[in-house]
């Protein structure tokens, strides 16, 4: 469990990156930006750990994670700037499909966002796919 504060500056930066009005409300996909607060999210730099990508050299390939195949959000009420949500992550279904070039393994993960009263505000479901 961790928390996700819905901060005005963060919402503005996110909206701006979509080409949206920065004061037009919290964008529908904003729950994905919980990545900034997720202790397990791999795609941010962490203190004391080497970051990857090109520097003097083009870098090295890092495996794992798979491709983001599908994404769903369910909204039980709009997110409000200034509130802090509590976040619960849990695994979902897994399934396999036969693709044209071999088996594809799909993994679903759910993230529930609850308000201070413990009411569900939003749920994010991410489906990733890995070629076996």
């Amino acid at each position, binding site marked *: 469990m961790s928390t996700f504060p819905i901060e005005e500056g963060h919402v503005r930066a996110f909206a701006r990156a979509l080409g*949206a009005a920065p004061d037009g409300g919290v964008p*529908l996909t904003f729950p994905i930006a919980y990545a900034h607060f997720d202790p397990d999210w791999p795609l941010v730099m962490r203190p004391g750990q080497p970051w990857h990508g*090109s520097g003097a050299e083009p870098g090295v390939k890092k495996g794992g994670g798979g491709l983001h195949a599908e994404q*769903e959000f369910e*909204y039980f009420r709009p997110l409000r700037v200034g509130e802090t949500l509590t976040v619960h992550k849990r695994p979902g279904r897994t399934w396999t499909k036969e693709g044209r070039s071999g088996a594809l393994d799909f993994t679903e993960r759910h993230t529930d966002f609850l308000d201070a009263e413990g009411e569900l505000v939003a749920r994010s479901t991410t489906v990733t796919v890995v070629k076996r």
Partner: protein
Amino acid sequence: MKVGDERSQVVVSDLKRTQIAMYAGASGDFNPLHTDEPFATRVAGNPTVMSHGMLVMGMVGQVLTDWVGTARVRRYRARFQAPTWPGDTISVTARVEEITDVGGERHATVSVEATSKDGAVTVLSGSATVVVP
């Protein structure tokens, strides 16, 4: 709002690398595939940096909220069908497919499709459930 109602919109013209960089910063997805040209081309073997699928989903979501407002959207789902790249112009069509009564509210199922390359490539398809205004 009735079945068959449609909205079409260009959500980005000539996507810029710095918009992808802005999205990386705001979303927290700093995978170098998205912003690091030498990595993207020489290590990952891609033609250039690839946009985040979530950037496209976010831009498509704006079409929905411009139409009905954020508070009316109850569900929004997308499947990432093809990558998008700098220089892409992305067009979105949203269409009301069905309207049903759910517990005293009227819910519309709205399909969304985003294309690049003058409509030749579907980059995202999805649907949303919205409360009918």
